[in-house]
């Protein structure tokens, strides 16, 4: 990492003033697809991950929390950063019921949400590429809703949680095998506003 990058990172942290160590030098943002022109949002060459809306702070989105759609437009991976406090919940093929692992992840996510009471989250539902687009959009919606309802039973206010489905449209990997498919069958939690320090 060069100094310029690190300096920009510190400025970013300072301006947002809400980060909890999420702006690590090794954070995500490396484009896995060659960027093309015309995508919305500023983007400096070489995939500098900070030249996005997060720096302007318009929506409170840090790059680490850009929605999958935004990531797609910017040519970046929609994989959840390892540093994100909210982890993905995974599902079986064609299912939207929560597994025990899924519930454990949601309990951890709920703990963080309780400690960060002004944070709002958009829960994204995703699917693997098998089956039809429309059915998968519906299935993704069910997955996001299942996560939302469980968080709600854990005491997180429903008004803090919105949902959206991307179906099979924004996968994190494209191989035609189960080890890729299972990564895509997920609910992803994007913090969209008001992260507070714990």
């Amino acid at each position, binding site marked *: 990492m060069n100094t310029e990058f690190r300096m920009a990172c510190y400025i970013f942290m300072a301006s947002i003033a809400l980060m909890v160590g999420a702006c690590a030098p090794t954070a995500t943002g490396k484009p896995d697809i060659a960027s093309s022109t015309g995508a919305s949002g500023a983007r400096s060459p070489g995939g500098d991950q900070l030249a996005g809306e997060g720096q302007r702070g318009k929506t409170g989105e840090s790059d680490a929390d850009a929605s999958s759609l935004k990531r797609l437009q910017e040519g970046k991976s929609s994989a959840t950063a390892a540093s994100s406090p909210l982890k993905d919940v995974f599902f079986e093929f064609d299912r939207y019921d929560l597994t025990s692992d899924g519930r454990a992840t949601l309990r951890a996510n709920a703990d963080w949400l309780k400690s960060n009471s002004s944070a709002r989250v958009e829960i994204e539902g995703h699917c693997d590429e098998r089956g039809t687009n*429309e059915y998968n*959009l519906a299935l993704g919606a069910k997955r996001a809703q299942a996560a939302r309802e469980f968080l709600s039973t854990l005491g997180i206010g429903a008004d803090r949680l919105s949902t959206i489905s991307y179906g099979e*449209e924004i996968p994190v990997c494209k191989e035609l095998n189960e080890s890729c498919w299972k990564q895509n069958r997920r609910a992803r939690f994007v913090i969209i506003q008001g992260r507070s320090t714990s």
Partner: protein
Amino acid sequence: MILKFVFMVFFFFTHPWVAATGEIPVQRAAVTGEIVGSGGQKFPIAVSPLKNLASPTTDSARLSTGIADAMVHDLELSGWFRVLDRSAYIENAQNSGITLGTFDFKDWSTIGAEGLVKGGFSVQGDDITVELRLFDVYQNKERIGKRYSGRVRDFRRIAHKFVDEIINQFTGIPGIFNTRIAYVSNSGGRFKEIYLSHLDGNEKFQVTDNHTINLSPDWSPDGRSILYSSFKDRSQTLYLFELSSGKETKFTPRGGGRYLGGKFSPDGQTIVATLESGGNTNLYLLDRSGNVIRRLTEERGIEVSPAWSPDGKQIVYVSDRSGSPQLYILDLQGGKSRRLTYSGSYNTSPEWSPKGDRIVYTGRVGNRFAIFTISADGGEPRKLTSESSDSEDPTWSPDGRFIAFSSNRAGRYHLYVMQAGGDNQRRLTGSGGDDTKPNWSPRLAD
């Protein structure tokens, strides 16, 4: 009339979708001595380059073969014809006549042609006049003669129209080559945009260019608009794009929900749309401006992918209410649904044949997806594609005799066309990426 009967009977009596005219098939052994087996011997036809009837221009050679090539493409795609290779043709088209008595049928029977398409054209500025004739090589007779005028740049349309006439001559039903396919392509990149093109890949038009995900194109029955869903305004909803004006109407889902897809009714007055709200998806009936007329399903699960019966009285759709995605048919008047599919654990993407009798859909076989048809009354499904690869997103031609679909059998997803019984599966020229979700237009107006 009698000759039309003979042609129809002799070459197509093994194909029920063509012979279903009530006429009793009779073998006429004398004409060629060929035996017509199941799967059909294709009808051998020659398509001569067109004769330039005016002074040569820089365009003449291109038009001479271009009009012929467009006809050859359509005839071969239909699966009913075997077009004889141009390199075998004996006569020189520019030096030969194009009407009865002005050329030698022996030049054509010698190479095995039973039918012959010949014609000529003349260009005046931006306009072209084309005359085309179908000849019966054995009977030494003219079967069809047509004259067309148009813009030079629309020369392929003339070819498509004449092939539709040829097919009408043989089968009593005009062909479907003056149509277009709407489809989704990523053109090798990461965004999905909507495109239109003719079956031969020409006259490609890009409907969207918004660098997001656009899905589920649906032609209006008058062929003038495309309905599609898009994430371009962040929240997925339906857009109705009018081709001639470029004007677009955005449908705003009530209650903050999202529209995942929609389909025009056969009379073009209403749209059945899938609304997702609070995790549940249900079907709604909308008007052309996107206002809700009424809600059609009230389930708490997944209800998606609706498609209309050709009489507009029923809607086939996908529901997971039984625990897995299966096809159901909703009667619009009574409001009741009946289950259609009982085979297979995952059935989706239904489309109702314009003939009304069968429904095509995608069904899971092992870990792959294949295309099936089933009678609208239910029963045993018929599998049309191999499950060694994935075939999905089927759509019917306006005459119900062909199905276009998307398949990854050659690596990426490409568009294919096959006959309604699964024969003659042929790849279409696409956009150089993953091409999916084809939707076949109605027959286009002149």
